[in-house]
């Protein structure tokens, strides 16, 4: 049911999905553990890409257009988000040198 016939061989959709899960989890680790804000942003991009892979895989499995088009939208949004996030980061970096995101903790209650 989940096998795909690609280029003459039989691949399985669940391999793609699994790979996507692994990449997602790697990105999550990056966001959680790394303290450099830039690296955190990069890890977020990694998570987004993993999601895109899932979308495209399903699109191929179900032979449907929706997955690919949504992946396109996702990429656009990711680009926009990266732009704004970096702009903010640059703005913060102007006033102070942030090496550790734990330094940015004034919004505490």
């Amino acid at each position, binding site marked *: 049911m989940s096998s795909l016939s690609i280029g003459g061989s039989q691949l399985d959709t669940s391999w793609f999905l699994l790979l996507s899960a692994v990449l997602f989890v790697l990105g999550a680790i990056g*966001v*959680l553990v790394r*303290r450099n804000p830039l690296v955190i942003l990069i890890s977020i991009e990694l998570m987004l890409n993993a999601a895109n892979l899932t979308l495209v895989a399903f699109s191929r499995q179900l032979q449907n257009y929706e997955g690919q088009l949504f992946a396109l939208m996702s990429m656009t949004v990711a680009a926009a988000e990266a732009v704004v996030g970096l702009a903010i980061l640059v703005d913060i970096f102007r006033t102070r040198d942030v090496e550790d*995101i*734990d330094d*940015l*903790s004034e*919004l*505490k*209650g």
Partner: protein
Amino acid sequence: MSNQALALLVLLFPIAGALLLAGRGWRLPRVFTVIVGPGVVWASFICTLALFFASAAGDFTYWTWIKSGAFAVPFNLLIDNLSIFMCLVITGVGGLIVTYSVGYMEHEDNPSYARFFTYMDIFIFSMLLLVLAGNFLFLIVGWALVGLSSYLLIGFWYQRPSAVVAARKAFVMNVIGDVGMILGTFVLFVSTRAVTYRKVFDAMSCSHATSTYCFTFDSPTLELAAFLLLVGAIAKSAQLPLHTWLPDAMEGPTPVSALIHAATMVTAGVYLVARMHPIYDVATYAHGAVAIVGAVTALFAATIAIVQVDVKRVLAYSTMSQIGYMFLAVGIGAYSAGMFHLLSHAFFKALLFLAAGNVIHAMHDEQDMRKYGGLWNQMRPTSVTFLVGSLSLVGVIPFVGFFSKEQILGAAFSRPGDNAALILWGIGFVTALITGFYTGRMWWLSFWGKPSPERPVDQPHAPRLVMMVPVAILAVLALVGGFIQTRALGVGPSVVSDFLDNVVTPQGWEENGAAIGVGIATMVLGAGLFWWARSLRPWSARFPWAQRLLEHKYYFDEIYDAFFVRPLDWLAGFAVRDIEGPVIDGVVVETGVVARAGAGSLSLTQSGYFRNYVLVFVGGAVVAAVILLVRASS
């Protein structure tokens, strides 16, 4: 104009006047208040006259006030001879008194002046509502509003602490009566499932058309209801034991004392018994209680009146005593006799109060009779009118007081087969003698002899026309009013009885000759004591303990203070200190404290660290995934 509309107008004029004065009166020139204040009462009187001449009768419903399922309370007015009678008294005598107070209150500034007439108009409206109401709920509404008006008017000079205290006392005791009334209404409602007079009274007479319940003689529920209603009547009419407020109520301006505490409000209890006569005819124990309360109060109040030095206090206790007579009358079944005495008392007591007001006004608000003296020569018209009122009070022919009081005593004397009524007659007889005495003392002390050296004013001014004319009118009424019902003499017209007997139960027996003779004898003895009081000036304290007892009004105030006021005061203090503060305020404040603490502890989750937040995200995602998995597998 239809009777239905007229009846409503009778009610609407005073309240319209009150609203007008409350809204605009204090801003506009005084002449506005002078016209509107008494004017609306007279307009009401004219409408009442129209109803009287049209012999109007009917139960008019104007709209439905409450409608809840099968329970409906209409706003209905019951117009019959009894209510027209009361309305005539209220609007007629009330009109005279309100007109009088145009002059009496002249020293007030504009806002207070308008306020006074607003309150008077509210009172007239409330009293009219009370007597016109066709169902128990509006009776209670009128009852309570009358109590409110009394409070407002007694405490009119609110800058005086004694007036404020007196007003509060009157209001609290009236509320005790209100509670009795309300409970009585509840008892009746529970039995008859009705609140309109028509439906409730049908249950008394066991007529099957409209009643769903039928009371038999000596039914305990009915007795209970009648007693509870009697409590209301006792409180409103200042009978024993709820009487202590009336003397204190003299703190109010004299027209207020005349209107509320002589002519109308305190007679509401008598009206109540007369209106509820179907109930009292069946509830014999309560009916007897009415008479006993009345007789005992009459004697009791008369004895206290002997030692009073304030002219208004004498009149207040006299009022208490005379209302006792009315209660006695309606209590033995002589309803129209009691109502006739109500009418005549309204005449002469209002007369007495207003004439006293003339004196007080001239004496610059001095009310101590020992400081009067010799006013006969200086204020002749007032002295004459006061004398007319006094002789009426004693019950001397040809004044109206004789005819009404002797009719009551004659009815008690000649009630067939009833020894209890004879005892009550005896009490009434003694009271009449004492009445002669204290009335005489009052008159001789104030008006005869040499002017007291402590007189505040040497040349008292004659009263203004607007203050003299109502007094004169009342004097004329007291003089000739008796001749409409000369039943006390056994012959002649009985206009009042004829008028009322189709509404209230007619007196079932006639006065015999002995009664008439005894009546005349009472009059002679009373007049004699009146004359005798002249020679006892100055008052000599021969029985100091009796003097003290009477001066302290039989220590009723002290007893009530010890048994009721002090414990309740303590309870209230306790409640404020130990319940209101720690518990109620505490709960509210503690809620705030708890909320603060909770918020404080919750805000610790806002650590400010980005990575903490992301951890929580991922944790949430894990939880969501678990849920999805569980759902998918189940």
